[in-house]
Every structure is written in structure tokens, then in C-alpha cells.
């Protein structure tokens, strides 16, 4: 619970100082993780799903939310290749499921990914398969964003015509 609430506090602070002002100024805010991360991570830690969603009801609903989906093996391999040691909480070592960091990471992140799948349907996130190369992913990402912004622009043009 304290883990969940501390993250919510941090999120509230960033929302009010870093997210809402640029939105008011008409800027695009690129958020590297959003409330959905909390939904999946906190639920994986055993916090009530409905409670977390209500907790974050003060958040602004994103105009576009994109989920980069990878199988658990891929994410484990990538993290292990990148750095020597897995972070304590990232590996879910606080859960006491395994004393082995890699094993614990697999178990915990597996649960996190399950939660994400649920969230994708519930909040209608756009999914980008992330096993492929960065170039490939970026191409898909740009396509999704362009399509979304293009719709917005057409709407604006229509508004001006009216």
C-alpha cells in the first residue's frame, strides 16, 4: 500500500507541475509510463484493482496511450544484457516469491504483463509488438501518432470552415 501511495504522490506532483501546465499551453506531453504502469504494478503486488483505479481518478486521461508489448523472456534477456544487477523492486524481491533475482523478476514481471493485457482491453491502449528492432517499432509508433494527430488536424480544419 505504501509503495502504491508513494508512487501516486509522485505522480500527482508531476501531473500538477509538469503535465497540466504544458497541456494548458497546447503542447504535446510525452509521458514515459503513466497511471497504467501503476495499475499493473500495484495489482501485481496484491493491491485491489478497483481501488487503484479510483485512486488515480484525478489523472488526466491520455489522448493516446501506447503499450509496447514483449514476451517475458525477451524483457528478461534485454535487462540482463544491459546491466549486471536487477533492481530490488523491479524484480519484485519484496514479494518474497524467490530469493533468486532473475527468477523473482520472471515471476513478478509475468504478473505485471498479465495485468497489462487486462488494461489494454479495459482502456483501449494501442499495442506495438516490441520484440522487433527499434526502427521497426518506431515506424509503427510514428504511424499511430501521425494518424491520431492527422485526425485532430482535420477536425481543426473542419472547425475553421464551420
Amino acid at each position: 500500500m505504501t509503495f502504491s501511495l508513494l508512487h501516486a504522490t509522485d505522480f500527482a506532483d508531476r501531473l500538477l507541475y509538469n503535465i497540466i501546465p504544458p497541456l494548458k499551453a497546447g503542447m504535446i506531453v510525452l509521458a514515459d509510463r503513466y497511471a497504467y504502469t501503476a495499475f499493473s504494478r500495484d495489482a501485481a503486488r496484491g493491491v485491489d484493482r478497483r481501488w487503484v483505479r479510483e485512486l488515480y481518478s484525478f489523472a488526466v486521461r491520455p489522448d493516446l496511450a501506447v503499450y509496447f508489448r514483449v514476451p517475458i523472456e525477451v524483457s528478461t534477456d534485454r535487462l540482463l544484457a544491459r546491466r549486471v544487477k536487477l533492481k530490488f523492486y523491479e524484480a519484485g524481491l519484496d514479494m518474497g516469491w524467490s530469493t533468486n533475482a532473475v527468477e523473482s523478476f520472471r515471476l513478478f514481471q509475468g504478473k505485471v504483463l498479465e495485468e497489462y493485457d487486462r488494461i489494454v482491453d479495459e482502456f483501449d491502449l494501442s499495442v506495438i509488438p516490441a520484440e522487433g528492432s527499434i526502427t521497426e517499432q518506431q515506424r509503427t509508433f510514428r504511424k499511430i501518432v501521425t494518424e491520431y494527430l492527422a485526425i485532430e488536424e482535420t477536425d481543426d480544419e473542419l472547425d475553421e470552415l464551420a
Partner: protein
Amino acid sequence: MSSTSLPEDGANGAAKPGNYYGYGIPYLPIEGYPGKIIAVEGTDGVGRSTQITLLREWLEVQGYGVIETGWTRSELMQPTIDLAKSSNTLNKLTFVLLYATDFADRLEKEIIPALKAGFIVLSDRYIYTAMARAGIRGVDRTWIRNLYGFAIAPHLVFYLKIDEKTLIRRVLQARGMDYWESGMDMKLGDDIYESFRAYQKALLKEYASMSDEFGFRTLDARRKVEVIQDELRRQIGAFLAESDTSRSEVAPSVATP
């Protein structure tokens, strides 16, 4: 983002004492725990801590195990809250969430283990103070009640009620007015006296409406310390006698009055 919620999702007056108000903490089931939570509410300077100290002594003499808990006393959060208060970077939302984190920490590490072990938890303020403060600062009342849906409904809630005039004299006599207690963050005015008066008045109104909502047992805090203490003991004594007969496992080991 999703905001369709029912009143029973959060803190509400219909909750059964000793159970979670709303969704609770799924990984910490508390059903059947023998301990009791007795909360003493009231604004600053109303005499809560004096009453709690006296109650503790009285209960311990009768053989009850007692722990005390109070706002911002969690080891995890106290330094953070103090720091944030002194640096003026808090907004009402982060303020509310920091308090909730402090409460969650004490709930998991102090209150729930004590209930499990059959202790009486004397809580110097409970979630109601946090809800009152948030309410007058314009935080959505349904949201804050849902937030505290992880809290446990106390067995007894005493509300030490006072009027603002008496309160002002007491606080000035005892230690003077402080920035947060005067609600200076709400920019009600530059004059600390006026701000304190307006802030405490709004708080008292908020407590009054919660008193109906949550069924507080209201005591007149303007009376003498001993008179209030006698009344508290009478009501707590009756409550404990009743629950001791219905469940023998919380029976006190000694019973010398």
C-alpha cells in the same frame, strides 16, 4: 480517470467495526482479529493526547494490551512530511496522498499486527481528520472516501467537540498558532488570527457533518479533563464488557478496578 464509484467502495458510515471500509488491503485479511480500534478525534488543542494518556493507563491497569498511534508518526513518512511542509512545494493533492501513505504505513506495520494480537489500539485522530482537512481544501469528498477505503472502521470513535472561541483561547494560552493549523496555505488572509479562526471554523463544520455520517460519539471538550475522562471510561468500559462476554479470547487477565 474512471470515476464511477459507489459509496460502499470507500469510507462510509455503514461499515462494520473491525472490518475494512471499502476494498481494503487484499493481501492482509483481518477477519476475526480480536483487537479493537478506539479513535479520538477533534481539532488541534482540544485535549486529545491528555485523554489518551489517561485512557491508556486505565486500560493497562485492567490488563489490556494497548498501543497508541497518531498522525504522521510513521517512521517511513514523518521525515518526508516534515520536509515537504517546510519547503512549501506541497499542493493539496500531494498533501492528502502523503498523509494517506503515512496512515497506510502505520496500518500495516502497527495497527493490523496489534489487532491480530488482541491489543486495543488508541488512535490519536484517525482518517477523519485527514478527510476533514482535504474536504475544506476542495478535494473531492467521494474521492477521499474511496482513497481511505483501505482503512479499518474503528470500533468506537469519540469526537471531542469544541467551539472556535474556546479553542482560540486554549491554543494561544498553550503554544500559539502555527502555520498549518491556521490554514495559512489556503490564503484566507494575511492575519494569522483571522486565518486560524476561519480555518478552524470550517474544520469544525466538516467534523460536524462527518459526525452524522460516521456516527461519532460526541463529547463536550469544554468540560474538565476528569469529567471527559470519566465519560470516556464509562462508554469504553461498557463496550469492552459487552465484547468480552461475546468473545472470551479478549478477556483481560486481571480485573482489578
